[in-house]
């Protein structure tokens, strides 16, 4: 599909078709937060179970588009077994990657940033910033997760 390769990368479609860490966790001991995208009606529930300051398990229930589902699935995969501090850093880096600066809008070239190398597979989602309306899809699960991390500080 010409033009959409940046958005629908193989790894994104893979997470969409085979989402990881799906399902619920009993609350408590887990904590749950919901996220809504008023634009399209998408909904996500993120469940996090911690042991001390380590994320022992994370589960996702997502009704949404390929981007919101894949992004939440990739998030779950990358934060499991991480400490809260590490998760917080990852959230910050991810949100930074997703932030649209006016100078970036409309430019086809996506700048490489050393800071993002640590994002690993998540960098595949960088193409989303070329489609500003989809940024909210990509950050839907992350915002819910961010709230959980915030509540544990």
């Amino acid at each position: 599909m010409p033009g959409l390769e940046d958005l629908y990368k193989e790894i994104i479609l893979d997470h969409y078709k085979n989402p990881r860490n799906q399902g619920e966790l009993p609350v408590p001991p887990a904590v749950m937060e919901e996220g809504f995208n008023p634009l399209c009606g998408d909904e996500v529930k993120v469940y996090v179970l911690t042991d001390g300051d380590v994320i022992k398990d994370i589960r996702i229930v997502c009704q949404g588009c390929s981007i919101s589902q894949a992004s939440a699935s990739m998030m779950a995969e990358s934060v499991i077994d991480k400490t809260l501090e590490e998760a917080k850093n990852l959230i910050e880096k991810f949100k930074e990657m997703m932030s649209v600066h006016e100078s970036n809008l409309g430019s086809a070239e996506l700048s490489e940033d050393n800071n993002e190398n640590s994002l690993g597979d998540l960098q595949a989602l960088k193409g989303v910033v070329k489609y500003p309306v989809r940024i909210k899809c990509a950050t839907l699960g992350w915002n819910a997760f961010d709230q959980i991390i915030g509540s544990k500080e």
Partner: protein
Amino acid sequence: MTGNTFESEKIKGDFPLLEREVNGKPIVYLDSAATSQKPIEVIDRMTDYYKQINANVHRGAYHIAELATSEMEETRAKVSRFINASSEKEIVFTKNATEAINLVAYTWARSQLKEGDVILLSSLEHHSNIVPWHQLSSERNIEIRWIPITQDGQLDLSSIDELLAGVKLLCVSAVSNALGTINPVKQLADAAHKVGAICLVDACQSVPHFETDVEELGADFLAFSGHKMCGPTGVGVLWGRLEILEKMPPFLGGGEMILNVTSDGFTTNEVPWKFEAGTPPIAEIIGLGVAVSYLERIGMEAIREHEQNLTSYALDLLTDRFGDDLTIYGPEAAVNRSGVISFSYRDIHPHDVSQVLDQYGVCVRAGHHCCKPLMTLLGVNATARASLYIYNGESDIEVLADAIDEVGKIFS
């Protein structure tokens, strides 16, 4: 074949935006239920207004102020004739249909409704005809009741008598923006009047597409927006029965809506200016007047016939081509619906569908269409929606179908 007599290709030529390309493809605009495109004569007239006669209305006694005022008031008369109102005083200009409905909620409803009263809404309503009533309900402890829908997205009126018991206000859309269902407004207005209720009609999706006759409909209020009927954004219309409008308190306070102001208080202007505080959207109102003339020239009956034929063509083509892979929501027969086609394709999210369609220049809306309660009843979070208008033809439907095929390829 449709379009033998209706020249949608020629009409398309009146719309400069439809000449552009999107992602290297000719634009196929299928989102007229959200907003219509504008013919060149509307755009030109608005530009000319600013170049030639821009002045505030109902104020100056100089030449251009008189021209601006008379053009604006002529539009009021034109809109009044267009919907067969009994007087141009029944036409209140607002900034959009949402404001028109809120005007009724803040003036008529807040002066007439009290705790324990009931408002009956159809389950097909847009948020703009739900939220103002939720706001009032939480303020006054007013009950909100819902008319259910059938499987095919039509209003289920089997229990309407029970539902109407104790109702003071019935709110219904003439056509559902999400499903295209044409609702039996006249029947509902008559039923509402039998129990002494007032009937408000959201006509955003009907006035641009069919002949509207408020006398025949029998409702008490009718709200619609200019931008869905070839007019500009920033102007909407509230029609209300004169005897009701006259008894209503004013809405916003300010200039224009007063007869006199003293240090002790004010007296209100006559209807309809009583409800038009501040400088109105003059250029937009004049633009709306040009849009009305444009639609009248094509003919509302011809527009309805074209849209019904094209909707039939689209329903047949999409069903033949995609079978069970494509779910179309709403009534089966084109005769029961407008040119709104809400669909889902396999289990692919409508957001993804519309993203791929955009790559082929096809503009459709994806989401809940500001109808979350309806989406809940349908058991979906969102749908994709193609909506047709005068400038669409069969080729647009064919491009849509080809692009849907491409969606399938990416998400197979």
